[in-house]
């Protein structure tokens, strides 16, 4: 599909590709249990002992935050308002039923007609389903009978233009000794242990998790992902970890670093920026003794160096770092400044890609502008 995939004049398509680095850490927590393990153990790579967090887990946090903020969400968590998902399917089906097959000349639909058709059927659905705009979805709309001719002109699934890869900790992790979590005690008492989900008896001592994400400007038009949607990620990711990990089973997780590199040129991105991050082993305690972020130092040398080498391709870098995160670049350690919004790492980035290119995200001030009207 092209930029005018939908006949909606108010839609502002995304024009630039972005690459996202998003790191958070987990203290005495189970960042992503594996229900298939039988006891919801943390997912750990048996070769490297790194903890693994799936993109599904991160997207769940983001969807829940979108939902709490009042944005429409299609793929609902069971904890949320019952019936919400079906009401969005109903919306879609009622739009479809509102169409008269005889009004459309299916043998002679030009791009403009197809854009009109897509807007008629999916426009309102996408406008009301923020998560589909980001991450896509598979539709379950029945287009049988007289609606069958529509099927070949309409997508049966949306590919999300925002893709996160499964993440790993930057270091091997150590599992805590088992103890009975409150959730498991209560579930067991009520005879629900068979379900097996959410029994967080197993936790890791510390894990610094690094996610990689990509915003594909070409896919954006398919789901009506707008520039405002992309900019919302700059505050949504941070707030999602802050707000969605308050509950007892996820407590102990904090966002540490967010970086969105927006590129100038079409179809270009450096790729794998998260792989340029590492633990600074000389300035961190031994990995089996890591307990909190104060004992961990991030090595950002390679990341800054790559951005520096390709600075002519970078339109802007939106960044926020936790005030308790230490980052080394070229053997120098950078820490937060005295004032909120200051961090030595920001200055290093400015030196690498240019003062005007680096924009520090003020999460809570900016978030207000990203809320639904």
């Amino acid at each position, binding site marked *: 599909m092209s930029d005018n995939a939908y006949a909606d004049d108010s839609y502002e398509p995304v024009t630039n590709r972005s690459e996202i680095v998003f790191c958070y850490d987990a203290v005495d927590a189970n960042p992503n249990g594996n229900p298939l393990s039988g006891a919801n153990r943390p997912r750990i790579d048996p070769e490297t002992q790194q903890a693994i967090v799936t993109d599904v887990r991160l997207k769940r946090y983001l969807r829940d935050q979108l939902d709490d903020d009042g944005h429409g969400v299609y793929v609902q968590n069971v904890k949320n308002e019952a019936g919400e998902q079906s009401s969005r399917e109903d919306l879609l089906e009622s739009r479809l039923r509102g169409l008269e097959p005889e009004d459309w000349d299916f043998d002679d639909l030009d791009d403009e007609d197809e854009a009109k058709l897509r807007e008629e059927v999916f426009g309102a659905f996408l406008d009301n389903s923020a998560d589909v705009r980001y991450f896509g979805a598979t539709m379950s709309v029945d287009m049988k009978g007289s609606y069958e001719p529509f099927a070949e002109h309409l997508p049966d699934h949306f590919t999300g233009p925002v893709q996160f890869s499964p993440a790993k900790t930057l270091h091997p992790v150590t599992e805590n000794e088992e103890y009975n979590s*409150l959730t*498991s005690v209560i579930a067991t008492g*009520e005879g629900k242990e068979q379900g097996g989900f959410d029994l967080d008896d197993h936790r890791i001592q510390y894990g610094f998790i690094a996610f990689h994400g990509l915003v594909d400007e070409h896919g954006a038009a398919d789901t009506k992902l707008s520039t405002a949607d992309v900019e919302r990620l700059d505050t949504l990711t941070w707030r999602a970890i*802050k*707000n969605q990990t308050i509950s007892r089973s996820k*407590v102990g997780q904090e966002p540490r670093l967010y970086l969105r590199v927006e590129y100038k040129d079409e179809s270009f991105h450096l790729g794998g920026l998260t792989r340029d991050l590492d633990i600074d082993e000389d300035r961190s305690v031994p990995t089996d003794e890591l307990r909190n972020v104060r004992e961990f130092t991030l090595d950002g040398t390679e990341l800054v160096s790559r951005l520096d080498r390709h600075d002519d391709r970078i339109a802007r870098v939106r960044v926020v770092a936790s005030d*308790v995160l230490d980052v080394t670049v070229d053997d120098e350690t950078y820490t937060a400044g005295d004032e909120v919004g200051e961090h030595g790492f920001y200055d290093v980035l400015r030196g690498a890609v240019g003062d005007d290119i680096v924009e520090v995200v003020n999460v*809570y001030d900016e978030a207000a502008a990203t809320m639904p009207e």
Partner: protein
Amino acid sequence: MRVLVHLRARADTTYQNDYHHKLRGRIWNALEGTEHEAVHDTNEPPGFSFSNPFPPQDMSEGDQRTLIVSAPQEELLSVIATDLQENPELNVGEMPFTVQGLSAITPDVGEPGSSGTIGTGTGLLVRIPPWRCEDYGIDNPGEEAVYWRPEHTIEPLREQLEANLDKKYSLFGPEYLPGPSETNGDLFDGYELLKTFAVPLQVTTDQRLTYVLSKWQFDYTVRNDDHRRHLNLALDCGLGERNALGLGFCNLTEKRDPYGKPAPEVHG
């Protein structure tokens, strides 16, 4: 975090306002033999607090009541929850209950910019150490601590509440992040005294004292992540003194998010 204990009265019963000592005994019994027992014989804050069985009215057999136990340490709550499941008979003095079920909630004051009200569900007891009395202009000829009363004005209450929470933070908060006294700004931005009342409390097996307690509504506006953490700790540990007797137990009674919407939920 907190455990809601769903209770059923086993007999027609008059509500007992001096429930504190009996409930405390049951909780310490549950913690016996665990690492949490050690705090029992110290003057340290215990790291838990509890509500009264509410609503506080006379009961007929079969009536429902709820009890809330809160604590910052999940494992401590797990131990108490296990005990209540294994021994569902809960006799609070002359009030006989059966534990019918448990549920867990984690109240949160909200992200920076959120505002709301924290209410003291049970009475609040604030201690003013003798060496601070002169600073506050409080006459105290003896060596004994003074407990806050309305004539002492808000200032000593405000400062001593924070000092008390600071102590709890040093025990239960993450040491690598600043505690209440290490950050700028007050814990609360509004203090509304609802009432004061006297309650006789069995402080130890052989000591019964009558305390003047107060009930409050504290307004807050979350300044930053540190402030959020401090207020949530107050919800977990309770405010002021004698939390192990159930004093200072707090509820989040009102909450507004920073973006003009009512918060999705407020936990009692």
